[in-house]
Each structure stands twice: as structure tokens, then as C-alpha cells.
């Protein structure tokens, strides 16, 4: 039964061929746009890697302050890096409460970690910018001791020591520095974990994967561009929905016309024993084949279009930032959307074809 249905379904008229071309155009737009967006993301990533986005920071999750990296695994990471612990807390000094960032930085060299500053277990080093801010606020010289509220605990009489002698240019000058041991003692779970690993050279991929880390671009403009291009891809995928609707409309109109034009033929098929299911299958199959042909053609044209845009862009002074690859995802999405639209849009005309002879519309006079 499948073969006759396929034979009848593959009879294309000028109108159905035109519909296939229209579907091809719609799919070309979708594949082309998605391929270019993917290519732009690849290109921006490549340029960003070439320019260099500064020291790399690795965190777990999306937000540094919520990141928790097990401190015990740090000695197994090759190379030199800083282990940054950072927590928002409240400092009480000269009877004034001030929200501050409390940080501890441990320097790792060949697997050995050293906590260079401050040296005292309970010392709190107020950096230069923080000192200025506090002095401006309290309008008096700083006291020698402070109280610190962190992890729901309060430590009092902590000695204040001078700012750290050296600081990475990555970090601002308004942090309160403590030793990592102090944080771990206050809260072994949250205080013991490291929030970020900061390195001059990127970590190797296997370490990043093993520890479940994600890279935080410390140069925001690069990250902004990367994230912006990724954001553009979301509305472009919504374009698929719109194109699906148009394809459904085209298929519905084309198949309705086919059924309308072939009403006598349908009556003849019914009279020689074709069941309503067979008749419906013929037109449903035709809708799917028509769309499949259009979608495949459109996908191929979309790939050509994206390559043409990239090839001709320099002629118009546009920077060639697009690195194209085979848009497998875009093709898959396009075929899925087109076929889904065809199946649904073909249902009504094919059902109408199946019941046509009962309504006697199709009987010859």
C-alpha cells in the first residue's frame, strides 16, 4: 500500500513546486541567520582569544561569591595561581558599622600554598581605599582594633594592620584582608572553600573539567560581546516559530488547493476501493514530502547564503569576524520545525480529501 501512496503523493504540479520554493526561501532565511549568528559567536571568541582577555579567573557556577571550590584539590593543580576567598561582611570600627568585602588570598606555587599577608592569625588588614572611606565616614583616625561580623558570627578585638604591601592589579583597594585560616575557623564549610582560582595562564581543559570550573572573563568588554552574541541567538531561534507558522500556512493553502483541484480523481480512487485512510495518507504524505524537499533545498541555500555574506562582507568594509562551521543545529531545527508544521497543516486538507466523496462534492455530474 505504501508504494501507490508514495506514487500518488509525489505528483507535483506547478503550484506545489512553487510552494516548495517558498518553503525553501523560508528555511534559507532561518538556516542562513542561525549559521551567521553561530559564525559570529565563533569569530568573536577567536578574536577575543587572540587579543587576550587578561588573567583568567575560574569559579564554580555563574557567580563568584556563590562559588565553592574544595581547598583540598588546589595542591593538585599545576602551575602558579592565587586562591581567592571572598565574603561580604560588616566591620565595626570606632563604633561605626561598615559593610566590607573580607578576602583571603593564598598564593600557590608548584602545588604549595602560602598565605603571605596578613601574618597574624587574627589580623585584619584594611586596604588603602577602605581606610580612606572609613576615615571620611567617621572623621577620626582609625582605631587599633575592629570587630568583624561574618557567617553570622562576631569576632571582636581583631588587630588592625597596614594595607597589603603588594596587590594584584586585578583587585581594588577597598577590601579587608584576613588570613584564610581565620575564615576556615569561623565557618569550615563556607569559609574553608575557595571562591575563585586566578591565574595568568589558562588552566588546562582536563583540570577545568575535572573540577567542574567555568572561566570568568576578567575583561568585561570581551565577555559582554561574547554574552551579547549568545543573547542574539535566542530571538533568532524564535524566528523559527514564526517561520513554522508561515510554512504551515503555505502547506495548508497548497494542499487545500490540491484537494480542491483533484476532487474528481479522489472520487475515482474511492470508487475503485481506496479507503478514506489511504486518500488521507496520500495528501498527508504529499504535504510532508513537499515540505521536506523545500526544507532540504532551503537548508542548502541557507549555507550558501551565509558563505556568500561572509565572502562579500569585506567588499563593503565590514570586518570579517564570522567563522562558519556546518550549522548542524540550525539544519536540525529547521527540518524539525518545517516537518512539524507540514504534519499539522496537512491534517485538515487530507481529512477533507478523505471525506470528500461522502459529501458528493466530488462526484462527476
Amino acid at each position, binding site marked *: 500500500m505504501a508504494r501507490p501512496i508514495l506514487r500518488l503523493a509525489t505528483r507535483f*504540479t506547478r503550484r506545489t513546486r512553487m510552494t516548495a520554493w517558498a518553503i525553501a526561501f523560508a528555511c534559507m532565511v532561518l538556516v542562513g541567520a542561525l549559521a551567521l549568528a553561530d559564525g559570529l559567536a565563533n569569530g568573536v571568541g577567536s578574536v577575543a582569544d587572540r587579543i587576550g582577555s587578561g588573567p583568567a579567573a575560574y569559579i564554580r557556577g555563574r557567580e563568584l561569591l556563590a562559588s565553592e571550590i574544595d581547598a583540598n584539590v588546589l595542591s593538585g593543580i599545576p602551575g602558579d595561581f592565587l586562591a581567592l576567598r571572598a565574603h561580604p561582611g560588616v566591620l565595626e570600627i570606632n563604633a561605626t558599622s561598615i559593610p566590607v568585602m573580607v578576602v583571603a588570598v593564598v598564593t600557590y606555587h608548584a602545588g604549595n600554598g602560602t598565605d603571605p599577608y596578613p601574618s597574624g592569625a587574627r589580623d585584619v588588614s584594611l586596604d588603602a581605599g577602605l581606610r580612606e572611606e572609613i576615615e571620611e565616614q567617621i572623621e577620626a583616625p582609625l582605631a587599633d582594633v575592629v570587630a568583624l561580623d561574618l557567617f553570622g558570627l562576631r569576632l571582636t578585638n581583631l588587630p588592625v594592620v597596614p594595607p597589603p604591601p603588594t596587590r594584584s592589579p586585578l583587585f581594588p583597594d577597598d577590601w579587608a584582608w584576613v588570613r584564610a585560616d581565620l575564615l576556615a575557623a569561623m565557618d569550615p564549610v563556607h569559609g574553608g572553600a575557595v571562591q575563585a582560582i586566578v591565574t595568568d595562564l589558562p588552566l588546562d581543559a582536563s583540570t577545568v573539567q575535572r573540577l567542574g570550573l567555568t572561566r570568568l*572573563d576578567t575583561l568585561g568588554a570581551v*565577555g*559582554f560581546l561574547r554574552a551579547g552574541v549568545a543573547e542574539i541567538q535566542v530571538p533568532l531561534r524564535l524566528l523559527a516559530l514564526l517561520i513554522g507558522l508561515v510554512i504551515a500556512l503555505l502547506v495548508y493553502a497548497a494542499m487545500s488547493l490540491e484537494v480542491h*483541484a*483533484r476532487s474528481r480523481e479522489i472520487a475515482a480512487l474511492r470508487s475503485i476501493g481506496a479507503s478514506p485512510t489511504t486518500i488521507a495518507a496520500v495528501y498527508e504524505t504529499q504535504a510532508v514530502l513537499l515540505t521536506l524537499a523545500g526544507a532540504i533545498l532551503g537548508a542548502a541555500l541557507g549555507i550558501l547564503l551565509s558563505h556568500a555574506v561572509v565572502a562579500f562582507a569585506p567588499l563593503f*568594509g565590514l570586518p570579517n569576524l564570522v567563522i562558519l562551521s556546518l550549522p548542524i543545529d540550525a539544519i536540525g531545527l529547521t527540518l524539525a520545525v518545517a516537518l512539524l508544521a507540514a504534519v499539522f497543516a496537512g491534517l485538515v486538507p487530507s481529512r477533507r480529501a478523505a471525506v470528500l466523496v461522502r459529501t458528493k462534492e466530488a462526484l462527476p455530474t
Partner: protein
Amino acid sequence: MIRPRAFAGLALCAFLLGATWPVLAALPSVPARVVAGDAFAITQGSGALSINVSLASNLSASNWTVTVSPEILGLSVLEGDSVVVRGVDHDAFLRLEGASRVSGSMGGSQFGLAGEAFATRFGLATGDTATIVGAFVPRIAFVRITGVFRAESVANDELLVDFSMARFLTGLGPANYHSIRVRTTDPGEMLRFLDRFQSSVHVSGPGMVPTDIHSDPPKDERLANVILRTGVGGAPRDYLATALGEATTSVRVVAYGIAILIGVLVGFGVHATQARAFADRAPAVGVLRAVGASNGWLRRRLLLESLPFAVLAGLLGAASGFFAGIVLLRGLDLIVFGHQVPISFDLVTSALIVLVLVGISMASAVVLLREALRRRPTESIREAPATEPPQSLEAILRG
């Protein structure tokens, strides 16, 4: 001659245009809204560095200025998403934007004020701390949210910080800004002042032709090309004006390009819908011709019948599409380069949607009638549909 069944298809096509075109029409204005908003924006020209504390204080001291807001723009990332961090004088900025307080404090020398949409997007509230990275230099910093504000401008999607934090994030010198935005009662006097002050600046704003004072116009050469060729140091001094022009042009090309492609797709849809509806009326054309109707009369008749359908479908579809677009955009929270995709009622775009739909519908009707008129009236009147004989693949393959 056009059956009412065409109405649903036409309305669907107008719906698609109504849901997409207003968004696409609004996109090109986003870069200018980020830099200038609805005030006059003064940005660095190609000459000596001029956007600085001295210019800002002299502008503030002039009696023809209402509000002067010096600003530093930083492009950053928060939780992997793009965000704009703006260094401002909170008092001047909030006054210029007409912003209102939602929670927390709007003052202080060190502050982090989150726009309401920004705070909602990242689940931040007053008292929370967020990690921000450097804009144009590698940095890691933490900003404590000291307040949340509401504004009807792009600032609602941004994070405002004090100048000290903004300079740390951008690497900008201690006395410099990226731009100065001004509300003034006398734009002409402002231009004369900038000329007398020997400032090398570009000025743009509502109802003003972009003006270059002691500066060459922004270069045509693309910033990306310059940076790729010479590195970041090769960028011109007036990179902000150049980047703004490029961004606007690029977004316009992409948005209008997509709008045209959607228009073509909708054209196919309209024609397919009308072809189906007109197929049932082909015998009527034959009858009318047989009783003496001329081609011109038939054409006029068809256009007269199609017009109300197209206009009504255009109005209903465009309106419902517009509201569906608002619901969809808000529901999906679509963000492009750190800002929510804008959608607002635009009479010109709405009228254009109806006009385009009516135009396509009329053109399609004329094409369909022309095809029907090619057939002899007797062929059209016959019971048996006069269709093109099907051409099977088997027949083609067998020659």
C-alpha cells in the same frame, strides 16, 4: 469574488508582522538610547581630551543648563550575562532620567544602584553583593547594592556605580568621563559655549543635527577593523561616537534586513491564502465574463471586495500581534546586549503593517485574477475544475 475564508489567513499574516516589526523598528535606536537617551550627549572628539571634570563643572555653572550628568560607560558581565555598568553622579543622573526610588538609599559616596529590571533579572535586592569584572581592563570587583530605582529609560536595565568604582573598572583617568549628558533650555548657547571652551567634542541630541566642534567627523573606517589591524591602542580618541554610529548602522541593517525577509515570507503567505480562497470563485469569473463584464470591471470589483478584508485583517492582526509580542517579550525576558528588547506602540510602524498587508493583498488579487482571465469563460464555468494536469515523477523519469 474573494471568499471570507481568506480573512483568517490574512489576519495571521498581519499578526506575524505586528509581533515582529515594532520590535525590529525599535532596535536601531537602542545604542543611541544607551549613550544619549532623550538628552543632549557630549562625547569626546578627535582632538584634545575634553570630556573631563572641568567641562562638566563649567557646564553645570551655566544658567542655560537644567541638568548636567557626566558619565562613564562600562561593558561588563554578571553571572555570565552582559550588563552595562554606568559610573554616574547619582543625584544628577536620577534627576536627568526622572528615576524614582524603589528601595534602599539613593545617596552616599560609594554606591551601587540597580535598575528595577536589572535587579529582577539577577534576583538582587538592596544589601546584596554582586561580582563585576572590569570593562576595558582586567579587574574583579564586588558591588554592594545600596538601592534599587525605577526609570522609564534603558537605565532600568543597568547598574549605576560611583566614579571611583567606574574608573577602576574602565581604567579611565581620574579627571575624565566618557560622556556628559545635558538637559538645556538653549541648545544653541550650549554649542557656542563648547566652541568658546575649545572643547573637541561631538554633540547629538533630540532635534539636533549631530555636530562636531573642534573635531573631525567620526571616521567611516570601522572600529573593529582598526582594532584588528593595530590593536586597542589604534582606536581613535572619539571611539565612543564612532562605535555608536557603527552600532546603530549595524543594528539597523540587521533589523531592517530581517524585517524585509519576514515581509517577503508574509507575502508568500498572503498569496497562498488568497489563491485558496479565489479558487472557489473561478467559475464566478467565467459567468461574469460571459454576461459581459469587462476585465477592468472585474479587476475593480475584486479590488473593492478585497480591500475591506485586507484592511480589517491588517488592523486586527497587527493589534493582536503587537500585544502578543509584548506578552512574549516580557514572558521570555529577551535581553540583547544587556538591555531588554524595547517594544512600544508606534503609529508609523502600525500603519506601515496595514499598508503592506493591503498592498500585498491587492497585488496578489490582481495576479490571481490575471491568471483566471487567461482562461476562456467556458473553461471556468465547467463543472470539472480546469486544473493543470498533474505531472508525476514516474512520467518525468520515463520522459
